[in-house]
Every structure is written in C-alpha cells, then in structure tokens.
C-alpha cells in the first residue's frame, strides 16, 4: 500500500484546516444529541466489573468492548509481585517474553522477537505520549526505560496491530503505561532498596492535589548496580581473562518525572539517563574491558489539553518536544595489546502535535478522529574511529511525517457491535501507508463476549536502517502485517474469567540483511499462528489465581524454517495469597518458556523461573516493605544471543534478592 513515493509534501495546511473544520462541525452537532449509554440500568455486580481501559480505542472503554485481546496490570500487581521494570510487568502477561543481552531488554510476543530490534515493532506510550524514539524506533522496557514502575497506575497491553489508530510501530502490540494521578498517591513517599549484585536504589516522590486547583506529582529516582562476575566459555582462554568478566556488567540510571494538572491542561516533563556496561564482549570488543558501554538518554516535554462535554464529546490536543541521545563506546585492539576507543553518538530532536475528537453522534455510535504531525528537527549520527580524536563521520537529516485517522464504533443491535478504523500515514522519506482495522464484537449473553478481529499495521523503516547502520539502505519501504484473530472472554460466576484467542499473522517486507548485497532489504515473509488461553480467578478469601498458556508456530513463509527466538509454548502461573489481610501477603509467579532456536542453529533450552514476593503493609503507619526472591530455585537458563555476540546463548541471572522499603507520609 505504499505510494506517493515522489511526493515529498505532507498534508498541506489547507487540507489540515479543512479536515479540522469538518471535525469541529461534527462535534458542534453532536452537542445536541442525547446521552450515550445508561449505566444506571446495569446490576451492581456488573458495575463492579467495569474495567476502565483507554489505549485500545484512544478513549476509555470496558475491556470487553476493546477491539483487541487486552491485559491490564495494575499498581497493585506491581507491588504484590515485586516487579522492578516494565520488562517484569510485560513478561507476566500471556504471550509476552523477553530477551536480555546484558545491555538492552528485547520484547517478544506470540513467538516473534527479532534480535536487537530495540522493540521498534511495539508501540510504547506513557500517558499517551509516544516513547519510541525517532532514530531507532526503540521502545525501552528494562532499566533503560524512562518509567519508574512505582509511578505506574496501570499498564494496558493491547495485542495485535493498532496502526489504524497509532500509525507506525503499533505492529505487534501497544503498551500504554498510565501513571498515578497525584490524588491517588498523596503525600511524600521515600523509598529505598537493596538487591543482589551490589544494587542500591532509591526514590523520592511528592504528590499533591490542591483543593479545586492544580495537582502535581514530582519524582526522582536513582539506581546503581555493580553487576555480576560472569563466565562465558566462548572466551575461555588466557588472553580473555579465562572467560571471566568481573567488571563491566554495571548498570546505572537517574530518572525524573513530573506531572502538573491544572483544569483541563496537563504538563509533563520526564528524563532518564542510563549507563550500561557491556560484559559480553559484543561487537568484537576486548573481553572484560569496563569501558565498553552504552549510554541512553531520553527526555520529553508534553503539554496536553483534555475536555469532555456532557454529551460525551471529548477533545484532546497535545504538543510535545522530545529528545533521544545515545552514545556507545566500543574499544578495540589496534594492534594487540593497544586498545583504542571507537565512539559513536546518535541523537534526535523532534516536536509534534496531535489532536483528537471523540464524539457520539447518536446513542449507538462512538466516532473518534484525529490528526498527528511530527517534525524530526534533527536526526544525527556521528562517530570517531579514535576517541579522543577527529570526527570521522558526521551526518544529519531531518524529516517529517503525519497521519490522519478515524474510528467508528457502532452498536448494531443490543448484542452486536462493530469497530471500524482507518488511518493514513504520510512520510516525507518513503511515502505513505494506509491501515484498516475491523472488529465484530458479539455478546451472546451478559457475561460472554466474542470478538472477530482483522487488522493491518506497518512499521516505518528507521533512520538507522535507511542511512546509518552498517547495512543501511535508503530504498527501504515499511514492513507490513495483516492479522486475523478470534477472541472469547467469559466472565463466569464467582469472579472467574476464562478467555482465549486464536490468531494468524502474515508479515511481509520484513527488513532483514540480504546476505549477497549485505544490505537491509524488505525480503522476509513470515507466517505465524497460535492459540492463547487465560484463566483468572479471585476467591472470596482474597486469594488470586491466574494461569495462561500460549501455543504458537512462526515460520519463514518461503523456506518454512522456524524463526529464531520463537518459543512454541509459553505458560504463566500467578498466585497471590493474603496471609494477614493487608498486613502481609505472598505472591508467587512461575513462567515457562519452551526451547528457542538460536542463530547458531541449536536450541536454547526450555526453562521455568519462579519468583516469590512477600509484601507487608501498615506495620507502622505508611510503611510498606517488600522482599523478593527472583529465580527461587536458582535455575540455570539462557536467552539467545544476537549476531553481535560470539555466544549463541547468554546465561541469565541465578537466584537473586531484593528488599525494598517505602515510607509514605
């Protein structure tokens, strides 16, 4: 669906204004219309089961109405299970898995995880703000992420393509992180913790909602980890310290996050700086050299205006300024034993705006429409072969992109609803992409929902892939995915949820290195299919139980060969038990990942990891203590390496501990 290759112009202002005028007219008309839905007619039990989810349709709706298979992880889950990063959160939901190469954490879902793609096939939103940067498209979820999990109110995980609403990167899933509102986290919170491998951390958060006026939340946190002493048998020779790395696994970050709300305006300022040593000898760097490291810095300013009218018409306008900076230090021998430093820097500045209107022209329809525009003011890449020394390469670009979308939710009858969406994106560099999505949502009974979903999505080639990577190719076009999915959600009696999904994904024009030309090309086609099942039960005594299982198969469409890093089976079990009401609770999670093919052609073995967290609240006023053991049974397990590594598989952490104390007053 790529066209307009020769037209570098984006939506000219006239077209923008016209589209805008149309929406305003619609919105104006909608004001006179009657009420949307009447919740007062629902029985109490059902009122209590309404989940308020935002991301799947860009407005709040019930989980069962979302045109997707959605999971929600709340602040309560995060505290209960001792989640440390967004990666921990995402790993806990069905279909998701992660790969850690001791530098970045990569996400996989439903059998798809490309080695070192920096998660550019996932869209990560922080309070609706796009976190994927404009250089690598990266969406960070490990310690490199900007989000402090303690500030999270909930994480909405929306599986499947959502390019019809969000544009690029909403390829496999959208992860919408919603931070706490100041009113729900009032006062001053001091938190300090210690963990295995010499890892202290701390944070200070202040939140306050002033009577009838502004509300503010400000938080700062810092983390440092000395890291582990590691052994890789591939480096087991005297020239490489006999395979032992005893420095270089360090990890440090500093974060700031502030939100201020006044009337309909919300201002947000966020910053993260993470410095990570690379202990794996990746990229042919000298082994056990602590200078090998990457630094990632992300910051943004976001200004948002939200307004909802009694008729249900909602308007949102957003303006933002973002920045991403990366620095990699890669020492090398020249010749042995002289070590020189190759250093590269890349950064991007971008500004953008989006506006959105949700309206209910009739009682049976919810119409959402929006415009987005992003200007990549500077995308720059710079390197020095010898640092300190002269600059060997310095190039900068700029580009712009925009999108326009519309989504209509129609209640066809009492039990059938349609959700139709379409979005057009236009890029200065390679043209455009049009992506539809359609869902039929059927409620045969009060507690059962069936969904048939169809959707397209795309991922725009990144600046890195187009111009700067060692395989860069300026002729790349967007990758595409087409998906078909059927979902059943049944809320049985006594807090029992049974949900399942069957899906098929067809991916084309996937960017891969063509071995003959040694360039990135839109070569690969992938077919993927699978089923997912989830059972969720809360007992009256407060016990909670959740089990999920994903079975999938993903293959190269031409060769029928299995994809690398694609487990056939994932299973998760979560149990939490209140031992002494809210004073003490225990939470246990077990996660199974089946074997995964690695680049060397062998299999990374299957494993099960068990984590246990004890959480104690209100021993004294405002005091919360959390003690966790991760990898309780000290299982030895591995994640597949990428082509940057000599190792085909990288060993992960053994049994490790964390103690965290939070005091709120």
């Amino acid at each position, binding site marked *: 669906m790529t066209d307009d290759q020769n037209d570098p112009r984006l939506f000219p*202002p006239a077209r923008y204004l016209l589209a805008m005028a149309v929406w305003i007219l619609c919105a104006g008309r909608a004001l006179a219309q009657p009420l949307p839905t009447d919740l*007062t007619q629902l029985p109490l039990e059902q009122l209590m089961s309404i989940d308020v989810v935002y991301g799947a349709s860009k407005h709040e709706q019930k989980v069962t109405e979302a045109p997707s298979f959605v999971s929600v992880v709340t602040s309560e889950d995060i505290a209960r299970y001792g989640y440390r990063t967004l990666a921990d959160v995402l790993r806990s939901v069905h279909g998701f898995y992660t790969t850690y190469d001791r530098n970045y954490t990569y996400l996989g879902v439903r059998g798809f995880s490309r080695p070192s793609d920096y998660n550019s096939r996932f869209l990560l939103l922080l309070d609706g703000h796009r976190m994927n940067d404009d250089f690598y498209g990266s969406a960070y979820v490990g310690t490199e992420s900007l989000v402090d999990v303690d500030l999270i109110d909930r994480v909405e995980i929306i599986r499947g393509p959502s390019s019809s609403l969000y544009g690029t990167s909403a390829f496999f899933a959208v992860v919408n992180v919603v931070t706490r509102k100041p009113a729900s986290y009032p006062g001053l919170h001091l938190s300090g913790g210690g963990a295995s491998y010499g890892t202290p951390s701390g944070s200070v958060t202040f939140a306050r909602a002033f009577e009838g006026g502004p509300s503010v939340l400000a938080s700062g946190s810092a983390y440092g980890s000395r890291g582990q002493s590691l052994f890789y048998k591939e480096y087991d020779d005297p020239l490489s310290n006999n395979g032992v790395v005893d420095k270089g696994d360090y990890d440090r970050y500093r974060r700031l996050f502030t939100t201020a709300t006044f009337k309909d305006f919300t201002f947000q300022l966020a910053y993260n700086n993470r410095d990570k040593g690379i202990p794996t000898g990746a990229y042919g760097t000298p082994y056990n050299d602590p200078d090998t490291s990457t630094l990632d810095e992300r910051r943004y300013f976001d200004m948002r205006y939200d307004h909802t009218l009694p008729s249900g018409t909602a308007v949102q306008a957003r303006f933002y300024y973002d920045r991403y900076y990366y*620095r990699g230090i890669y020492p090398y021998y020249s010749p042995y034993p002289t070590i020189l430093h190759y250093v590269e820097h890349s950064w991007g500045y971008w500004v953008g705006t989006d506006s959105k209107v949700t309206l209910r022209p009739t009682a049976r329809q919810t119409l959402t429409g929006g415009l987005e525009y992003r200007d990549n003011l500077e995308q720059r890449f710079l390197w020095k072969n010898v640092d300190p020394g002269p600059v060997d390469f310095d190039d900068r670009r700029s580009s712009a992109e925009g999108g326009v979308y519309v989504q209509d939710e129609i209640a066809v009858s009492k039990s059938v609803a349609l959700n139709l969406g379409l979005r057009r994106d236009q890029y200065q560099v390679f043209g455009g992409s049009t992506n539809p999505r359609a869902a039929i949502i059927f409620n045969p009974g009060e507690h059962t929902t069936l969904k048939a979903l169809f959707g397209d999505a795309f991922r725009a080639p990144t600046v890195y892939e187009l111009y700067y990577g060692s395989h860069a190719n300026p002729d790349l076009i967007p990758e595409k995915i087409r998906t078909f999915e059927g979902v059943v959600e049944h809320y049985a009696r006594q807090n029992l949820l049974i949900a399942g999904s069957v899906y098929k994904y067809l991916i084309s024009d996937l960017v891969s290195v063509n071995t003959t030309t040694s360039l990135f090309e839109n070569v690969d086609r992938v077919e993927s299919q699978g089923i997912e099942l989830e059972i969720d039960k809360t007992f009256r005594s407060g016990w909670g139980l959740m089990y999920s299982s994903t079975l999938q198969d993903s293959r190269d469409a031409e060769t029928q060969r299995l994809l690398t890093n694609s487990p056939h089976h994932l299973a998760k079990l979560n149990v939490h038990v209140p031992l002494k009401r809210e004073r003490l609770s225990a939470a246990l999670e077990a996660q199974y990942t089946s074997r995964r093919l690695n680049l060397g052609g062998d299999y990374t073995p299957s494993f099960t990891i068990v984590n246990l967290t004890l959480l104690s609240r209100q021993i004294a006023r405002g005091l919360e203590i959390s003690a966790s053991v991760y990898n309780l049974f000290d299982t030895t397990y591995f994640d597949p390496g990428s082509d940057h590594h000599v190792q085909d598989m990288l060993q992960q952490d053994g049994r490790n501990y964390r103690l965290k104390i939070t005091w709120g007053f």
Partner: protein
Amino acid sequence: MTVECPGHPRRYSRSIGRAPRLVPAVLCALALAFLQRAVAQESASPLEYQVKAAFLFNFAKFVEWPSDNPRDAEDGFVICVFEDESLAQALDQAVSGKTVEGRVFRVRRLQNLDDTRSCRMLYLGGSDTSRLVALLKSVRTTAVLTVGNAPGFTRQGGIINFIMQDNRVRFEINPEAADRAGLRISSKLLQLATIVRDAANLEHER
C-alpha cells in the same frame, strides 16, 4: 550538546530554518482545542465518573431511610454533591428523569455544609482526610447517607467509600456509621462491599 560530544558544538541553523513547517500543525491543534472550548461550557465526565454516578443511583435502592424522616418534606430524592463537579455532571446525566419510590431524583451542588437538610445522600469530594473528618462530624447522626472517595473515609465515620481496585470501582461500607445515622443497608449491598469498622477513637466516643 557540547557536553555530549566534546569538541563538536552543535549548529542550530538547520532546525531554526525548519520551524515554520510546524506552524500549521500547532495552529491546528490549538484552534481545535479552543474552538471546542468556545462551544462547550461544561466539563469532564469520563467513564469512571459515570460508573460512580450509577453506583450512587443504585445505593438509593438498597438503603432504607427512617420513615419519620424530616427530609421527606422535600418533594424529591436529593443527592447532594460537595466539591466534585465532574461527578455532579455525571450524576445529572445518570439520574435525569428517573425516580425512586415515586420520588424524582435531584442533584444539588453544595458550596458548604451549612444546609444539608434536604440531602438524602451526601457525596463528599476531595481527598484531604482530616478535613473530611471535620465535615463528617456535622452530619454524623443525621439520616443522611454519606459517600466519599478518599482513603480512610469509612474508618473515620463515613458510611460508604469508593475505592479503585484493579482498575475497577469498588466500595467499602461502615455498618456502624449507617446505624448511627439510622439507615438500613440491604444485605445485598453489604455482600458486595468491603466491610470497614470505625477507627478506635470513634468507638470510644460512643
């Protein structure tokens, strides 16, 4: 940027040259926002408020007020809302045209708590607990169903309190507080609620 790339100061010319392209987009977003504002006078009522409003509506059906209630003089069922305009609006929508026991629902916005005589139900917005304690004192033994939205509200003598749990709206009930007000809460409602007792100091007062 000199900090990040020692010895290689950044040149700004390019980005400044590009700025005008932004103008239409920014204008668009702002115009959209402000035009919309001009059309509208009222403010937010997202799903959370709608759900809470629906709960308030339902509470009226599951609570019995004393039969000799002087509040019956009032010709409707009055829900009073103190300091939460968003909820009041959601409530306006939710109860418009509806009745309970033949009485028409009415929503009253209170500026202060000097006159709560007509209120059958009193919703107290705000989350400042110490202030709520003071407010509650003024209505504690009168036949008004107090509903709050703040941690500790029921422990401090409020009758019903909304809590957000796993993204859903739940509620707590303090039966002792209901007794004091002379209200009878149906077992159906009590079953669905988390039961909360008075904080120690309140018990001593009794």
